[in-house]
C-alpha cells in the first residue's frame, strides 16, 4: 500500500492504463500544458506527449463530441471536464450520443469513453458551479455513473471505468483532491463497477452515502458508537448500476435506513434507493427511511447559507436517532 492523494490515485490509474493500452488518451481544458486545473494530470504531457494528452478550447460540447467520435472509431478517450457543472454545455453529446448510440446502432458501435472531473459543491462557488450531477446522469439508461469516496476506490474504479466498453461518468470532487489515503499497489488493481462497499458493519441503522457524504456518514457512525449504537455504513461507490443487494442485505439486518446525499432531493439517488428498499425489503423496515440531502433550491453563495444548504452531520445524526426511535 502507498499513501496517495486522491488526485494522485486518479493520475496513477490513468497512467497505468495509458501505459497498458495505446488507444487511451486524455483530453480536456488545461489538462496538458497547465498540468490540469486541479493538477490531476500533472506530468502526463511529459510522459505521454501531446498526441495522448490534449488541451482543448473552452468548448465542452465540441470536445465531448470529439471524444465520442474517437470512441466510435476504436479509441478509448478520457475526457476531463474542469467541473461537471460545465458538462451541461455538452448535454446532448452525453445524453443522446454517448448514452444511446450503442442502443440505436443495434450494438454495432460501442462507446468506450470516460468523462471525468469534479462534481458537486465545493464551497462558495454559487448556484451554477455547485451542482451535484449524479442524479441527473444516473437517470439516463446507457450511462454508468461512478462516484468514489476515497483514493483507493478512485484508482480501482477509474481503471475499471477506462476498460469498460460503455460510457462511464466518473465523478470526483475539488474538496477531496488533496485527501490522502492508502492505495493498493497491486498490479491491475480493479474494483468492479456496480459493487458497493460495506465500510463499517453495524446492527442498528444503515447509513448509505457516497462521495463526500460518505465522510459525514462515518462521523455520524462514530458519534452513535459513543452512545452505544451500532451504525452500518454503505458506500455504493457506483451510482448506476446501483448495488441494491448490498443495501438490502444491510436493511434486513438493521431495519432502518438514513441516506446522505448532497444532490438536490427531488427525483434523486436517495429517492431511488428509498424506492428500491421499500419495494424489495418492505417487511424489514421498522421506520420510514430518512434522507439528508442538499436543500431543494439552487446553491446559495453566502457562506452561512451554503453551510445550511448542504447535508449536515447533525441532521444525519438526529435522523439516525429518529429512525432508531431513541430521539
Amino acid at each position: 500500500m502507498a499513501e496517495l492523494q486522491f488526485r494522485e490515485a486518479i493520475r496513477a490509474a490513468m497512467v497505468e492504463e495509458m501505459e497498458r493500452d495505446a488507444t487511451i488518451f486524455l483530453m480536456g481544458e488545461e489538462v496538458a500544458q497547465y498540468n490540469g486545473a486541479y493538477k490531476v494530470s500533472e506530468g502526463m504531457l511529459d510522459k505521454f506527449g501531446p498526441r495522448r494528452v490534449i488541451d482543448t478550447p473552452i468548448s465542452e460540447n465540441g470536445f465531448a463530441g470529439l471524444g465520442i467520435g474517437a470512441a466510435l472509431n476504436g479509441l478509448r478517450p478520457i475526457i476531463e471536464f474542469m467541473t461537471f457543472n460545465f458538462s451541461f454545455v455538452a448535454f446532448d453529446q452525453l445524453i443522446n450520443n454517448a448514452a444511446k448510440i450503442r442502443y440505436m446502432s443495434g450494438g454495432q458501435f460501442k462507446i468506450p469513453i470516460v468523462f471525468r472531473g469534479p462534481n458537486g459543491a465545493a464551497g462558495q462557488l454559487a448556484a451554477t458551479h455547485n451542482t451535484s450531477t449524479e442524479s441527473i446522469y444516473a437517470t439516463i439508461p446507457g450511462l454508468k455513473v461512478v462516484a468514489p469516496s476515497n483514493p483507493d476506490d478512485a484508482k480501482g474504479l477509474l481503471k475499471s471505468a477506462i476498460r469498460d466498453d460503455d460510457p462511464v461518468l466518473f465523478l470526483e470532487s475539488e474538496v477531496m483532491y488533496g485527501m490522502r489515503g492508502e492505495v493498493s499497489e497491486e498490479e491491475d488493481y480493479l474494483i468492479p463497477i456496480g459493487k458497493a462497499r460495506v465500510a463499517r458493519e453495524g446492527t442498528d441503522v444503515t447509513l448509505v452515502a457516497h462521495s463526500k457524504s460518505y465522510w459525514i456518514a462515518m462521523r455520524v457512525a462514530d458519534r452513535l458508537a459513543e452512545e452505544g449504537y451500532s451504525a452500518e455504513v454503505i458506500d455504493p461507490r457506483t451510482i448506476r448500476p446501483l448495488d441494491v443487494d448490498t443495501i438490502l442485505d444491510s436493511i434486513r439486518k438493521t431495519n432502518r435506513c438514513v441516506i446522505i446525499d448532497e444532490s438536490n432531493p427531488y427525483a434523486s439517488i436517495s429517492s431511488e434507493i428509498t424506492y428500491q428498499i421499500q419495494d424489495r425489503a418492505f417487511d424489514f423496515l421498522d421506520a420510514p427511511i430518512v434522507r439528508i440531502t442538499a436543500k431543494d433550491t439552487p446553491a446559495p453563495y453566502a457562506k452561512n447559507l451554503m453551510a445550511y444548504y448542504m447535508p449536515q452531520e447533525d441532521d444525519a445524526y438526529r435522523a439516525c436517532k429518529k429512525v432508531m426511535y431513541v430521539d
Partner: protein
Amino acid sequence: MAIPVEMPKMSDTMEEGVLVSWLVDEGAKVSAGDVIAQVETDKATMDLEVYDDGVLLKKVAQEGEAVPIGGLIAVLGKEGEDISGLLAKYGGDGAAAEAPPKAPAQAETPSGDGAKPTTIAPVKPEEAPSDGRVKASPLARKMATEHGIELSDVRGSGPEGRIIKRDIEAVLTERPAAPEEGKAAPAPRPAPRPVPAPAPALPGEAYEVVRLSQMRKAIARRLAQSKFTAPHFYLTAEIDMDKTVAFRSRLNALAEAQGRGKISFNDLITKACALALRQHPYVNGSYLEAEGEIRLYREVHVAVAVAVDEGLITPVIRNADRKGLAQIAEETRELAEKARNRQLQPEDYSGATFTTSNLGMFGIEAFTAIINPPNACILAIGAIRDVPVVRDGEIVPGKRMKVTLSCDHRIVDGAVGSRFLTTVRDYLEEPLNLML
C-alpha cells in the same frame, strides 16, 4: 355538537374491547339507552348503549376491531354535522390526553360494612391513538405474524403509537417459556426501552395460529400475575365423604319430591367453604401490595370456576354463607348456564372473596390451582373415590375426597390455612352442621 361514543370499561379487568357487531347503521337515529353494537370483553359479549339522542354519524371502529378503553367507537350528532375536528382529536398524538380511560368503578373499594373487595389493579392509561387503526412498522407486522402476536395487544412506543420492532421484542421477552416460581412479575405492557431479544427459531408452517380471545388474554394476564406475584403454598387434606354422600342422597330425594333441582357435591362444598370462611377471616381477605394493606372482607362471596369453550370463568355466589343449599344450587346452575352462553354480566363474576375449582368430574384425584387474585386462597377439589379404609381394625369400603388449598403466603400462613381446611373438613364429615 358531535358526541363521541367511547369504549366503556365493561369489566374490572378489561383493557380493551372487540367490537363484535354493529346493530345500527350510519345515518340512523338513536335515543339514549339504545343498543348500537355488541362488544366482546375479556369476560362476555355485552351490549353497547348510547347515553344521548342523535344520529349515528360515523362508525369509527370496524367489526372485529379491538378498541382500548376510552378509544373512539362511534360519533353521534346532528345530521350533516362536521365531525372532522372530533375525529382529529382522537386521531393524533392527543388521543390519550383527550380520551383518558374511565376510572374503574369496580376498583374503588368502599369502606364500611359490606365492603366489596378490590378485584383489579389500577388500569394504566392507554397511549395508543383511538382512530381505530393499529399503526405498526412493516417489520413489526411481520414479526407479529410470525410469532402469533395480536398487534392490538401491543402498545406501540413509536410516534403516534406506532408499534415497532422493540415493542414486539419486548412482548417476546416477556412471554414466559414456562412459569417459574420466584420470577419477578412482568410489566403488563412492553417497556419503552429497546430490549434485545434472541430471535427464536421459526417453525415455519409447522403450526396453526390461533387468535387470542379476550378471555384467553385475561386468563393469561391474571393467572401469570397471580403466580408471579403471590407466593403460593399448598395444603392437601383428605376428607371422609361417607356422610356427605348419604346426606346429599336424602337432600336430593326431598328436592325431587318438591320439584326442585338437584344439589351437587360442589354446592355442598361451596356452602362448607362459605361457613368456614366466616370463621377464618384471613382466608376471606386480600393482600393488596399497592395499597400496602390487608383487607378482611365482612361478606363471603364464593366464586366457582366454570369451564367454557374459550377458557374458564369464575361466577360468584354472593353471601354464600347466608344462603340455603337449594338457593346455592340454583344460582350456581344459572350462573354456569349464563357463563356457557357468554351472558354473564360484570356483577356476576366480580367481587369474589374466595374461589373453588373442581376437577372431580374428570376423575382427577388431587391438583393444585392458581389463586384467583386478589383472593387469598383457592380450593382445588378432586374426585370422591371409593377406597378401602380401616375402621375399628377392619377394612371397609369408604368414600374419600382430596382437596388442596393454594394459599397466598403474604396473607395466609400454614397454620391459618390448615385451620381453615380443618373447618371445611369438619363440615363435610358431619354435614348436618351445614344446616345449623
